[in-house]
């Protein structure tokens, strides 16, 4: 059982390593979207400082969504997903390994890059660690929730549908994530937001592997 989970995980990581350029797309997309806002809103530091948490979080949502088609799409076309479904292990656990690999490749870079971009927006030093923790708790939620959307949209007509499904479900993560950082900005404790984000993570950890596995099964029928 553990061998199989490890095999799924390592294969995705190894494959991504051999195709590094593909995965850097998400990362640079995040940076570019964040950099667009000062150009659109104007370089006024006071304004930018206020909207920075929201911008960073919205950009993280969009970047994570952009990476979703990679979660299952190639496995779906090359037959790997059939093999995963027919493996003796529960499909939900195998899917969870894929989600973890996906998060390491697309979510973790955003977590590490977030505080650096926060500096660009003149965020106060005490906001940066909170931004880091909120992204650390929040981006796994995005990968987990996104996996459901990625599974449901396998082989469908039209490529934008996944955004319609996933973005509304992302909203609590956005609210608690940016809320934590904003809370520090107005001088209150971010603990409540971060705990709620943790609660969302726990719920997603339970619901998402089951729902994604069900979605994958439906797609293969």
């Amino acid at each position, binding site marked *: 059982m553990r061998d199989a989970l490890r095999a799924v995980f390592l294969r995705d990581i190894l494959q991504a390593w051999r195709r590094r350029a593909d995965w850097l797309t998400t990362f640079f997309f995040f940076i570019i979207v964040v950099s667009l806002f000062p150009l659109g809103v104007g370089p006024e530091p006071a304004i930018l400082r206020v909207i920075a948490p929201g911008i960073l979080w919205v950009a993280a949502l969009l970047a994570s969504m952009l990476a979703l088609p990679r979660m299952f799409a190639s496995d779906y*076309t090359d037959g790997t997903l059939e093999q995963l479904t*027919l493996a003796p292990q529960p499909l939900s656990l195998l899917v969870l390994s894929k989600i973890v690999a996906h998060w390491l490749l697309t979510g973790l870079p955003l977590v590490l890059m977030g505080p650096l971009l926060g500096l660009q927006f003149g965020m106060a030093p005490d906001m940066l660690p909170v931004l880091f923790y909120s992204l650390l708790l929040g981006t796994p939620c995005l990968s987990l929730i996104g996996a459901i959307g990625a599974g449901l949209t396998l082989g469908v007509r039209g490529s934008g549908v996944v955004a319609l499904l996933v973005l509304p479900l992302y909203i609590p993560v956005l609210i608690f994530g940016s809320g934590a950082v904003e809370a520090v900005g107005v001088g209150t404790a971010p603990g409540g937001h971060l705990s709620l984000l943790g609660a969302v993570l726990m719920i997603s950890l339970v619901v998402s592997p089951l729902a994604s596995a069900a979605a994958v099964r439906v797609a293969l029928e």
Partner: protein
Amino acid sequence: MLEARDIACLKGSRWLLRGVALRVEPGEVLWIEGRNGSGKTTLLRMLCGLTPPDEGVIQWVGQPIVDAGEAYRRELLYLGHANALKDDLTLEENLRSAMQIAGRTARSDEFDEVLAQCGLIDRRELPVRVLSQGQRRRVALSRLWFPDAPKLWILDEPFAALDVESVQRLSDRLGRHLDGGGMAVLTTHQEVALPAGRTQRLRLDA
């Protein structure tokens, strides 16, 4: 043994399959024949449990495969049209992860032996991207050569894209599998010498 009764499949508003019955005992191979679009692949996918039949029941050793679940999947080896290989990984990496996902962690010397038997040993370090269609098929099929392979093989067009020598090698391997009490269900367009007396034929468009 594998048994199916009254299998039906509705595609859109048309019956693709209706009233299909089959029974495969240990040591037997079932050859499913039919034109393109006659439902061969769909039937194989139903036997695996990927597609639930719209009517009828499929049983493994007397138990519906839906209930048998993990126990059934342990005894099953399915190879579909797609080879389930990753272009960027080497032949050996592909095979190793495929085996681990199927719940069988094979030893290194077993890999050496299997790859030698399948004539792939000199290509083991190559990424699958550079292999030809026939070679890719052989990589996917090489899972059949590992010791204690699953009992039931469900193979969709296993002989397609293979050269004469590989076809012979596969039908030999199939023969030995049946000798050992194994079962197989397969589709093929080619006339292949399958073990006489132990081959059933099922025509879908008859």
